[in-house]
């Protein structure tokens, strides 16, 4: 494991001397109560080690943890996996979980853990650094970055020249046989939840039945993005960053698709949050709080903004990648409270047969 290198040793030595000078131990409370980023940071925590379970883009999280280690002297053990599988793992581990922090892709995975009373409150300072709607209303987890739902189309098709203004349009017969969706993705359920909120359960159900009649169902957003790019279907509902990552892989010459966004205010113009929380069972609460504070600080947010994950930073004053469509022209963040744990949308997806 490369992370315990010489810089770490040097840092921890400095940290130990600092600790002796300051004469303060690590308190169980928040390391940065004022919410200022951990840069240079809570030296009393140097030498500690935290374990992060992450369902996020591994390359980006690796860059983040390396930077955090360098700045704070806290070492991070990173465990990457599928966010749903990691959430299930934490549920089975219960209070014996070795995880200190869970960094998810979508709110439901965090909300489930919060409902099971497994998350500790996030330090108020950290919560304050991002808009209140981006974090759990109960304060069990904090938003870190944003992604948006989008409509990807194959170039030169009817879908591309006349993209749908609303996600509701996709249920009309005009879209029969031209559409792809990936309802088994954790990214899709929030759109359904939003439809339930705006159109009611019956309205959402009718909409899903329409989608079922029209769409080819794919396993994942990755598969769907590739299928649209190769012209297998004219268009599909995906999160925006899949298109950018695919474009990077295929290069401009191999990219035959384009992103469109639903009209602002539409249930499909959905801005969704990736967030992180601290396990109540963590024995390194202060170091874990420092990591969360770091994630929503300027350094990490800039790192996220510049990374190949193509997500939007949440901290105001940190611009997203220039090539991304500005977030405020796409839509507003759906209040996390409206998204819940996704159980209602799951049941509706099952009832309509889009999911088994």
């Amino acid at each position, binding site marked *: *494991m490369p*992370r315990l290198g010489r810089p770490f040793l040097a840092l921890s030595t400095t940290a130990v001397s600092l600790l002796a000078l300051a004469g303060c131990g690590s308190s169980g409370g928040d390391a940065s109560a004022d919410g200022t980023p951990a840069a240079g940071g809570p030296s009393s925590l140097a030498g500690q080690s935290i*374990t992060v379970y992450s369902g996020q*883009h*591994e*390359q980006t999280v690796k860059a983040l943890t390396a930077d955090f280690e360098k700045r704070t002297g806290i070492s991070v*053990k*990173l*465990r*990457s*996996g*599928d966010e*749903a*599988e990691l*959430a*299930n*793992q934490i*549920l*089975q*581990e*219960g209070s*014996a*979980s*070795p995880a200190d922090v869970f960094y998810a892709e979508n709110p*439901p*995975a965090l909300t*489930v853990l919060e409902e099971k009373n497994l998350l500790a409150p996030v330090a108020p300072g950290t919560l304050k650094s991002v808009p209140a709607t981006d974090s759990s209303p109960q304060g069990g987890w904090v938003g870190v970055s944003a992604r948006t739902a989008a409509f990807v189309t194959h170039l030169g098709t009817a879908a591309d020249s006349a993209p749908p203004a609303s996600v509701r349009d996709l249920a009309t017969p005009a879209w029969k046989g031209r559409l792809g969706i990936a309802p*088994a993705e*954790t990214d899709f*359920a929030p759109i359904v939840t939003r439809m339930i909120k705006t159109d009611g359960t019956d309205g959402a159900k009718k909409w899903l039945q329409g989608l079922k009649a029209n769409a*080819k*169902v*794919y*396993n*994942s957003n*990755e*598969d769907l*993005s*590739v*299928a649209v790019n*190769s012209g*297998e279907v004219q268009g599909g509902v995906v999160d925006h960053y*899949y298109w950018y*990552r*695919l474009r*990077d*892989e*295929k*290069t401009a010459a*191999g990219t035959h698709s384009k992103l469109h966004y639903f009209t602002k205010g539409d249930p499909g113009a959905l801005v969704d949050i990736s967030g992180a929380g601290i396990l109540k069972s963590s024995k390194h609460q202060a170091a874990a709080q420092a990591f969360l504070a770091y994630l929503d600080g300027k350094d990490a947010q800039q790192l996220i903004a510049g990374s*190949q994950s193509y997500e939007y930073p949440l901290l105001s004053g940190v611009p997203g990648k220039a090539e991304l469509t500005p977030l405020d022209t796409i839509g507003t963040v759906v209040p996390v409270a409206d998204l819940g*744990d*996704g*159980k209602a949308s*799951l049941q509706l*997806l*099952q009832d309509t*047969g889009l*999911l*088994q």
Partner: protein
Amino acid sequence: MTTPHRAEGLSPLRRWRANGPLSPLAPVAFAVVALVVSPLAFVAVQAAQAGWDQAQRLLGRPVLATLITNTVTLAAAVTFATAVIGFGAAYLTERTDLPGRRWWTVLLALPLAVPEFVRGYSWVSLWPSVHGYWGAVLVMTCSLYPLVMLPVAATLRRTDGAAEEVSRSLGRGPWATLWRVTVPLARPALAGGALLVSLYLLGEYGAFAMLRYTTFATAIFTEYKLGFDAASASLLTSVLVALALLLVGLDAWAGRRGRTTRAGSTGRSAAPAALGRWRLPSLAALAAVVALSLGVPLYALGYWLVKGDSTSLPPASVWSSALTTLGYAVSAALVSTAAAVPVALYGWRRGTWLARSAERAAYLTRALPGIAVALSVVYFAIRYAQPLYQQPPMLVAGYVILFFPLALTAVRAALAQVPPGVEEVARSLGTRPLAVLARVTLPLVLPGLGAAAAMVALTASTELTATLLLRPTGTQTLATQFWVYTSGLAYGAAAPYAALMVLMSVPPVLLLTRRALGSHPTPETPR
């Protein structure tokens, strides 16, 4: 030729001492079986937490009937196809004068080392029309037939072909000899391999999802992935367990019909059957199997390497990932094979209802989705083996639980070839039981042990779901690295890892076909 009565001519006292309560075999066998069926206990514990209403809502859905039909019809077709191809491939490479037989064995075994994601994705990306039922039959057949081929090949290699020679000399044609003599000879291996394939299909998810074919396992995954609901998922999984019980019972019933076997301990080999005008069609058939099962995935990997913009020389860490993968695969293979010996031996020596049931119960875990098995290991390890939690032995334990049935099948099939009474004869000559095991029994089943280790090592080296959940934090195998890149759509960067998995499998397969499978000389010269 042989009679099923073992221990004939042995005094009751001797028999009691050899196999009775003093023998440690039974407790060891039961301990192994208890470990490998532990996921069933996990499923039961979780399912019990689902309320009655939840159970009604989940199990009362009409779609479940469709899903069960999808699962069963697929399992039936793929099991049949893998049995035909697996047996055919083993027969051609072991019993005929096919040119380049050893190389064919290697090529035919390699699809086991192709990661599941590559298998499914290569077809879907190259030919979008490959999907649904027939797509799933094609892709699964291509990837699973080695599970039939390897145990059958080991069985055929171990037996000397004299029976076939007798049959031919008595005027039976080659087809009649094949059907009446060779097939029955290979029946235990054939049935075992078919059981492995059919059980696996019950719980398989990833490849089907890519092929847009929904089975019962799809419903289970929905509960885990979107519901975060182990109780509902386990409730549904118990339906799979019921199906698995049915399959295992079917196998027991089929297996009762005669076990006419004979060991090739004469050291004398029969001439291979001459293919004659069937030589070209046989070569073409094997070439087609290799092209579909190995060529297509390798072609896709090459395509990603050439076309992918993320393609770069993998970082130096690729070697440490490769070593890690190798270490875990070998450990899993050794432990699984070692654990399979007492279970198979117990069933073979005793032949009682209890012994046979224990042996068959060990197969049930094979029908569970990988995530259920992995979460079960998490559940038990964190409660009862906390110091080992997320330590290397835990991942090895996960692999052993997942792949034990593979090892058991190969060892069982090999033991079925050993003439009953061999051990008793050795013991009656005064050799101690452990020495009998080391000097008589194990050498007789060596090809089976080799096939067992090969099947487990190759399969474990590409495993992903359990690896992600059970690995020590920070550990990277080739499969997890591959996953990191593909989940970021960086196929070009991912390809070298998959290619390395396949490449790394060549030396062990070669070694096995030389040493273990090849322990028996196969002269092609006329006698």
